[in-house]
């Protein structure tokens, strides 16, 4: 079946460095791809999304890149801060299904 998955389960970065979290997907019919951040003991929080007909979108300190040729999605966090430590999930949205399908998640650890 269709699935969304992540390459790296854990990513450790130094404070101030840039972080790159990667995700592979298999469902080409998705309308949007989304990144969520989940801090310990909390529910996932929307970070940024990208429409399937775009290849790049920038937010505040975050950039999402979409490569449909290889079905790859990435989240770049600039100047990573301790508050960025969390699990990051990529997810895909199928408008017709009104369903959000999540990947397994990547743990981001920011070292001081």
């Amino acid at each position, binding site marked *: 079946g269709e699935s969304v998955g992540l390459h790296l389960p854990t990513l450790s970065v130094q404070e101030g460095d840039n972080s790159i979290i990667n995700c592979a997907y298999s469902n080409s019919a998705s309308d949007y791809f989304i990144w969520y951040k989940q801090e310990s003991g909390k*529910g*996932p929080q*929307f970070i940024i999304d990208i429409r399937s007909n775009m290849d790049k979108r920038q937010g505040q300190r975050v950039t999402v890149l979409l490569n449909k040729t290889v079905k790859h999605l990435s989240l770049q966090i600039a100047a990573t801060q301790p508050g960025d430590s969390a699990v990051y999930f990529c*997810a895909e*949205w199928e*408008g017709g*299904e009104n369903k959000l399908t999540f990947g397994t998640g990547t743990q981001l650890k920011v070292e001081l």
Partner: protein
Amino acid sequence: GAGVSQSPSNKVTEKGKDVELRCDPISGHTALYWYRQSLGQGLEFLIYFQGNSAPDKSGLPSDRFSAERTGGSVSTLTIQRTQQEDSAVYLCASSLRREGTGELFFGEGSRLTVL
């Protein structure tokens, strides 16, 4: 509060007992979702409500699981005859139903432990 509210935050039960988990969505949000998150895993879709339409129950893992949404607002997820494999965090989310977006607002979840 302004966010999605879930209760209880923690529930410990014995195998075979029934449990009810409650979700209060954000006021005005017409779409409501239940997801399950096992330890260290991603989120597994369970059920989706949209207004007065029939719910999408395609993610419910067995007939022991059911959910209802009364008056288009509060939702209750019921698990009958709980099993140890039901132990997980159950997350509720709501959204304004807009075409082509996946921005859901999640509650903090109800952690269920089945002994």
